[in-house]
């Protein structure tokens, strides 16, 4: 290899499942080689090349990078009318085939086919193919997302007499509502601030510095992130409960405990989002500032942080979104005294059966979530633009002066990330008769009031998650494929941008809303699925879809349109281009997408808690019901079950990372 200084980085992390309870995330555990770029850059085995006659050795990959391929290249210096008119917001967007090459015009030519990718399709046309590929997921989304959510929201405005604002007004007038809104915002703001404050040094250390074990540490830091919310809630509970390791702090059912759990989740969002950009910042700007007489602190404040601003803003918006819509963690840790809008919706619907109130709260939640999603989207687009301007990842050896970052990161890794998990594992072995496997043995029985054993719940979870994964992958592939087109016409681009936003919506709408929406809409003809277990995988697929799309899309968008053109001029039909060019690229992201989809579905709690029937609960539902029951035996079983679920999730992600790159790494 070229040396450590050139490492292929992961795609810009930009999304993860909804904070409420679908935890695995896009950033959390990307395999190190999972790059949206064909990993040609900087990987020339120097010593093994047969000498070219001229003796010149031009790294082909880096040439390619200079001349307009993929996310790395900016619009060509001589950007003509076409350059920069690609899809907004995507890596590689706006990079026409001509960008960077000596051509005044790029891909954004006025073409006839709205979706016809220049070159791949010859002369326009094939619009219908993309339209068809878009219609299926769009229809699915309409029936299983838009309709239930809209129906739920509509409930807030209807009573026996017809349209009314009374219910909504009552909710908005209640002091309890505003206390909950305040708690939601406070929790999100504080969680975001701490995630940023702790995550930035981590991003620096793990993405800008080089030291032995960095890869392992990057992976370790990401682990909490794929854990189901219920597991994390239970882990913190084990730590903060009166008899727990930190029980003396009296933090059970406290704001601090919840924020700590939220930071536990979101730490790696910041580390990976900011780190991805940081690792690609050209160090020469900082070096220039240093030679101009700026201190390290001043360089950080005046050069580095401003350059990182888009990534920081993007991470902050995402973390805010996840914190504001957190559900499982708050439900487990908050107890009766603490609530957010999300848990309040759950409380109003399942406990009080007050639908207008729940609907009104859903609307409030939608406002908050849409706002943060909007900010996240804007900043993500900006970050992708920024990322395109930078080159290969750069890093430097760890220096003594890096000690603040080391101290902060070590403290976070040990104190915030390791401690709750260690506590969880430890508590799972604590039984009435001392340390032992009693809690695990109890998982086989129907102890307490459980209708099924934990192992049966696990089997349910696996079946449901498999179905949800299959669904999410099929839909995700279709959606990513459509979204990766680079239509030449302005209306085509508008259509695609709109589609892009639509398919990301499930990321922003609370899973609780979706789950409850299912209950009230899909319970009567034409679609009476209430008694069918298929509702659960459908709901989980909806929650996982944005994640699958965000994982597949960068790899598809990274395909240089000229690869398609080259294939077409070599005689490949559009179908053959899909099979021989697009599919191999998509496969690179497929293993990972599969892992995310499966892990997400496995840990999904918000929607599932509404939809799971008592005789067929999933594992997270069982864990939640166990932790809510009194008695040391139930508590111990909850711990053991959470450990099982955590191990399973981690195993799924590990397998996904293992198969992902391998199957797609023929070079």
């Amino acid at each position, binding site marked *: 290899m070229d040396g450590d200084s050139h490492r292929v980085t992961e795609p810009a992390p930009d999304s993860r499942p909804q904070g409420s309870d679908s935890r695995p995330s896009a950033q959390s555990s990307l395999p190190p080689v999972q790059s949206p770029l064909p990993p040609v850059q900087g990987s020339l085995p120097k010593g093994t090349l047969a000498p070219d*006659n001229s003796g010149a050795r031009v790294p082909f990959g880096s040439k*390619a990078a200079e001349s307009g391929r993929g996310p790395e290249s900016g619009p060509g210096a001589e950007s003509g009318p076409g350059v920069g008119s690609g899809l907004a917001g995507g890596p590689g967007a706006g990079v026409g085939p001509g960008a960077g090459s*000596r051509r005044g*015009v790029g891909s954004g030519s006025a*073409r006839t086919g709205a979706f016809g990718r220049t070159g791949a399709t010859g002369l326009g046309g094939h619009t219908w193919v993309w339209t068809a590929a878009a219609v299926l997921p769009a229809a699915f989304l309409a029936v299983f997302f838009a309709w239930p959510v809209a129906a739920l929201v509509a409930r807030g405005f209807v009573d026996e007499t017809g349209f009314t604002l009374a219910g909504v007004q009552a909710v908005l007038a209640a002091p309890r509502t505003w206390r909950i809104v305040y708690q939601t915002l406070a929790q999100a703001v504080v969680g975001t601030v701490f995630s940023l404050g702790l995550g930035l040094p981590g991003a620096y250390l793990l993405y800008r510095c080089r030291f032995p074990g960095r890869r392992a540490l990057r992976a370790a830091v990401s682990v909490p992130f794929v854990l189901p919310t219920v597991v994390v809630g239970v882990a913190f509970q084990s730590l903060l409960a009166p008899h727990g390791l930190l029980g003396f702090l009296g933090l059970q059912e406290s704001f601090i405990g919840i924020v700590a759990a939220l930071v536990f989740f979101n730490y790696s969002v910041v580390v990976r989002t900011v780190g991805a950009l940081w690792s690609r910042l050209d160090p020469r700007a900082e070096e220039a500032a240093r030679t101009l007489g700026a201190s390290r602190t001043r360089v950080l404040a005046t050069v580095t942080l401003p350059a990182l601003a888009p990534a920081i803003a993007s991470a902050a918006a995402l973390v805010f979104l996840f914190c504001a819509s957190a559900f499982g963690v708050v439900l487990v840790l908050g107890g009766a005294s603490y609530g957010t809008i999300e848990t309040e919706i759950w409380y109003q619907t399942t406990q009080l059966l007050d639908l207008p109130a729940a609907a009104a709260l859903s609307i409030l939640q939608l406002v908050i979530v849409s706002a943060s999603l909007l900010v996240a989207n804007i900043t993500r687009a900006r970050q992708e633009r920024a990322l395109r301007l930078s080159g290969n990842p750069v890093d430097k050896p760890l220096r003594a002066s890096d000690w603040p970052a080391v101290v902060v990161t070590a403290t976070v890794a040990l104190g915030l990330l390791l401690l709750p998990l260690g506590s969880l594992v430890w508590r799972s072995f604590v039984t009435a008769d001392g340390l032992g496997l009693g809690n695990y043995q109890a998982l086989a029985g129907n102890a307490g009031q459980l209708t099924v054993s934990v192992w049966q719940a696990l089997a349910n979870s696996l079946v449901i998650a498999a179905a949800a994964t299959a669904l999410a992958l099929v839909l995700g592939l279709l959606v990513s494929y459509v979204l990766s087109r680079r239509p030449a016409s302005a209306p085509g681009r508008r259509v695609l941008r709109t589609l892009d936003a639509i398919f990301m919506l499930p990321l922003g709408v609370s899973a609780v809303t979706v789950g409850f929406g299912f209950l009230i809409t899909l319970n009567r003809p034409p679609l009476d699925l209430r008694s069918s277990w298929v509702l659960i995988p459908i709901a989980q697929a909806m929650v996982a879809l944005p994640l699958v799309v965000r994982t597949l899309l960068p790899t598809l968008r990274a395909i240089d349109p000229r690869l398609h053109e080259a294939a077409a001029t070599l005689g490949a039909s559009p179908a053959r281009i899909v099979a021989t060019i697009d599919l191999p*690229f998509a496969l690179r992201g497929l293993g990972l997408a599969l892992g995310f989809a499966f892990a997400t579905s496995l840990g999904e709690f918000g929607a599932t808690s509404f939809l799971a029937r008592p005789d067929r609960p999933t594992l997270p539902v069982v864990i939640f019901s166990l932790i809510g029951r009194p008695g040391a035996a139930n508590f111990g079983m909850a711990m053991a079950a959470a450990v099982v679920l955590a191990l399973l999730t981690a195993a799924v992600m590990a397998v996904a990372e293992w198969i992902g790159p391998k199957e797609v790494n023929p070079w």
Partner: protein
Amino acid sequence: MVSGLQVADAVVRYGPVTAVDGVSLDVAPGEVVALLGASGSGKSSLLRAVAGLEPLAGGSVSWDGDDLAEVPVHKRGFVVMFQDGQLFPHLSVAGNVGYGLAKDRDRPTRRSQQAKAERVEELLELVGLGGYGPRPITALSGGQAQRVALARSLAADPKLLLLDEPLSALDRGLREHLVGVLDATLRATGTPALYVTHDQDEAFAIADRIAVLADGHLLQLADPATLWRHPAGREVAGFLGYGPFLDPSAASALGWPGTPDGSVAVGPSGLVSDLSGTEVRVLDAQPRRGGTELTVKLPDGQPASVLTPDITTHGRPPAVLAVRLDPSGCTVLATT
């Protein structure tokens, strides 16, 4: 019947911008035509239009007399070789080269597979990369990658090869070497080609005829010798490296024999140092390989360059120099 490629009044537009404006040219069987022009001259757009990668807003592209407007890219048999190769990163060298061989829908048999492998190896040897088949393309240098791209293009047995600045991403030494490889390969296979370049030397080295483009217009289409001796106007001459341009009296003052019937375009070697010539003031001196390039102020006020073999002491050029025009290094542009 006409054979080969005919482009008639081709127009390519990107929104309001017209990149190619009514260009007509043809490529005969076995002929290599260079499209030479500066950045933004429309040469690459024209190439893309010929390939079918851009729609024509006007005019036509035809092959052997058949209009290609309705023929999609992959059925034209025109292979584009891109500036940066655009090798498929997920395929090996052999996989890339063989890509265009496998267009038939026949089920691959052992025999056809073997024939394919042999053909791939044959082409790799043609470009000097025999035995490279199993390598990943990431293990290639820039020059090797472009040779693989060339082999891949030839494997598809193109009716016409479209080369879009195939060498400009490479450094100079490699470029000069690969021009030779390209030239030899094109001649050996008899493949007609359109060769887009902004590099005059490349165009002169490889082309049977050169089309000079500027702002989407075809300024001149001629064989290299004619183009050099008789550029169609000041713009073409300037692009080829002529300059300054002297009116007849100024030329006479610099020793032009007789009175030229137009302005004299001074080529790179058109002004020589000659003790019996006209004395001019030296403005600047730049060391060059094997000599010094002096910038002098001609009697009519224009600056001009003179290459002298003398190495001037750095910073101390002679104050004046006697120069004259060498007609063999100049050309006379008809007054327009």
